[in-house]
């Protein structure tokens, strides 16, 4: 008997929708023209790019289609936004960001701090992952070039009040950028009613193709291009357009809008049922992040006294895919900076598992996970020197740390 795989790692990447692939295919072959060309080959492709821009504009609730710049993905968009702001805001050389941002923002900030003498304020979060608003207010000043704070956190799903944060940034004349890679397509957005200047998104997180993304730049926002070259994207992102990718991203945006209702109702219910079921069936585990304000698809559950990689390996053997905040799954050996910033004890942070749903998931998926999780956790706890039994204090165990 082969088990049906269960994919619950949609915050890492999603399946590219069959309709998206179908929409893209002609743009590899017969519709191969360069949209900049004068002839008919180019013109029809130019129309498709325009249509894709319009779909994306609709998904974001943008006011104008020229506010969308197509890029290669979230990382490029994040880099583009922050580097542009530093260049375009003379006399301002400070960045404000949060402790739980994606490496696309944090590594760049660390690099700028080291190489360009930029001052970076990293705003801490509390145990539920909520931003320290007082610290944020205190950091804002006439020196702030840009604030970059994510819309929703990739590990816990916690949503930040970016509209309000943007208004505070405006008071000191700073630009506001948000990495919305996890939010776009999962929750309704209406950028035209906000003061958000720039927003990054990624195609493959919303059932679109990998290697595609966009940066939203509100009309009138000072902007400097990252790549120098041709006039593409109104001179703001040089390089011949990735037309199949752009068409695919447009289709994915169109589908995301259609499925939005499903995402915030049925998918959220699946997530809630899984979460509740696990908490009922397994002792000594808890939900991390802020359940009151979070993405409808994400659950992050910390299983105490065991380590995430072991859980994932055993889940994988059952055909279930998820991810972990554990140090040992990250390649770098560094435990999740998000859970560390939230001060989660390491005996729990290491056993944190992220389940992230999408519209592809079903009730059967939840049933299957609920069935296999208890024995997996039990098996690993039997091996753990910290484990004393359900709801018991951990065993006295004080290893010599090297």
């Amino acid at each position: 008997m082969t088990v049906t795989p269960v994919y619950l790692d949609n915050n890492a990447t999603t399946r590219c929708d069959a309709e998206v692939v179908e929409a893209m295919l002609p743009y590899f072959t017969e519709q191969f023209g360069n949209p900049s060309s004068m002839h008919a080959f180019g013109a029809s492709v130019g129309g498709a790019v325009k249509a894709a821009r319009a779909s994306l504009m609709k998904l974001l609730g943008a006011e104008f289609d020229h506010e969308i710049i197509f890029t290669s993905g979230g990382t490029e968009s994040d880099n583009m936004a922050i580097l542009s702001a530093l260049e375009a805001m003379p006399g301002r050389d400070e960045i404000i960001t949060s402790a739980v941002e994606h490496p696309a923002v944090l590594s760049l900030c660390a690099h700028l701090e080291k190489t360009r003498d930029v001052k970076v304020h990293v705003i801490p979060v509390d145990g539920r992952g909520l931003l320290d608003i007082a610290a944020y207010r205190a950091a804002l000043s006439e020196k702030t070039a840009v604030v970059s704070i994510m819309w929703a956190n990739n590990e816990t799903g916690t949503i930040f009040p970016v509209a309000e944060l943007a208004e505070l940034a405006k008071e000191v004349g700073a630009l506001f950028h948000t990495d919305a890679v996890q939010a776009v397509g999962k929750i309704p957005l209406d950028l035209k009613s906000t003061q958000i200047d720039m927003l990054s998104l990624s195609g493959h997180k919303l059932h679109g193709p990998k290697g595609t993304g966009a940066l939203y730049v509100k009309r009138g926002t000072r902007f400097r291009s990252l790549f120098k070259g041709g006039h593409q994207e109104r001179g703001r992102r040089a390089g011949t357009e990735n037309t199949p990718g752009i068409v695919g991203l447009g289709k994915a945006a169109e589908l995301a809008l259609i499925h939005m209702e499903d995402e915030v109702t049925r998918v959220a219910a699946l997530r809630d049922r899984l979460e509740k079921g696990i908490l009922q069936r397994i002792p000594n585990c808890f939900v991390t992040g802020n359940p009151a304000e979070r993405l409808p698809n994400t659950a992050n559950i910390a299983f105490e006294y065991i380590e995430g990689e072991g859980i994932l390996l055993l889940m994988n053997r059952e055909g279930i895919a998820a991810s972990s905040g554990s140090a040992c799954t990250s390649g770098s050996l560094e435990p999740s900076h998000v859970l560390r910033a939230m001060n989660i004890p390491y005996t729990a942070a290491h056993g944190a598992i992220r389940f992230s749903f999408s519209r592809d998931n079903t009730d059967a998926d939840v049933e299957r996970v609920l069935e296999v999780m208890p024995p997996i956790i039990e098996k690993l706890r039997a091996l753990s020197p910290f484990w004393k039994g359900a709801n018991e204090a951990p065993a006295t165990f004080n290893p010599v740390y090297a």
Partner: protein
Amino acid sequence: MWDYTDKVRDYFFNPVNAGVLETANAVGEVGAISCGDALKLMMKVDPETEIIEAAKFQTFGCGSAIASSSALTEIILGKTLDEALKITNQDIADFLGGLPPEKMHCSVMGYEALQAAVADYRGEVWSDDHEEGALVCKCFGVDEGMIERAVRSNKLTTPEAVTNFTKAGGGCLTCFERIEGVLAKVNEEMVGEGLLSFDEAYRIGSVDPRSLKQKAKPKAAVGSTPVETAATETRKPVISLDALEKAAAATVVVGSAAEAALQPAIGLPRYTTVQKIKLIEEALEEIRPVLKKDGGDCELIDVDGANVIVKLSGACVGCQMASMTINGVQEKIVAKLGIPVRVVPVK
């Protein structure tokens, strides 16, 4: 996903000797701060014979940590404490068919738990002197701590020397700038402490990594530990590489006649073939223990003019470091003879 061997997977999915050993009289509890893993090793030791009669473990850690712990209990079973103390972390990794470089610390944790358990049995206090840092060289699994120690204890001042001592940078070289950074940082500290003069200290950018690609010859591939090679490192090669190249090229063209012509020309010592073989054997004998430590060996097959024909065996066969080992052997023989030779490996 990590590239785990089937044996690692097997020992993780079906660990042997997991759980609490009630009758334990030797317990080691250690952890690796770099990733938060921790291991409790419990052993029952016969007081008469000091033979480990039973061993069990409990581990808080990833798949390879659990597999390493389980493997350790299998390896030590039936051994005396003195035998067990000779087990290295590499033995644990080898038992499992190897571990990814990022995961070698799991085997180190097993090694340390064993040391701690034996110390516990003997009523000694075990303290750990092992430090780790961020992994710098992924090809050979060398972390920042190891580079820092090698630089400091051997007064290294070039990236090339770091490669020679630690293997770091001996592979893909993408870590060159990180090696350079660590080297410059430690050198600067050493200047501050008066251990190194300002002029000797390495400065970032003063070596072109492209020039290293072909020359990197990890001495550690020949097996010696940093401290042991400290003396040889500072010694200048007797013969320049250029001279060696010329000699070898000449040999290819006209054979030993060229060698004979070359020798008096640059005032090198002359040996009979028998004398040469004797010295080469001596040189090989000196390298042999370190080769054996890595599970390999090297045998002299023939001496033909300036060509020394050798055969690598054991773990050296098929090792991606084999060509560097040959370079190390060659350097040793050249130093011994004082004349240029070319070491040619045969299968």
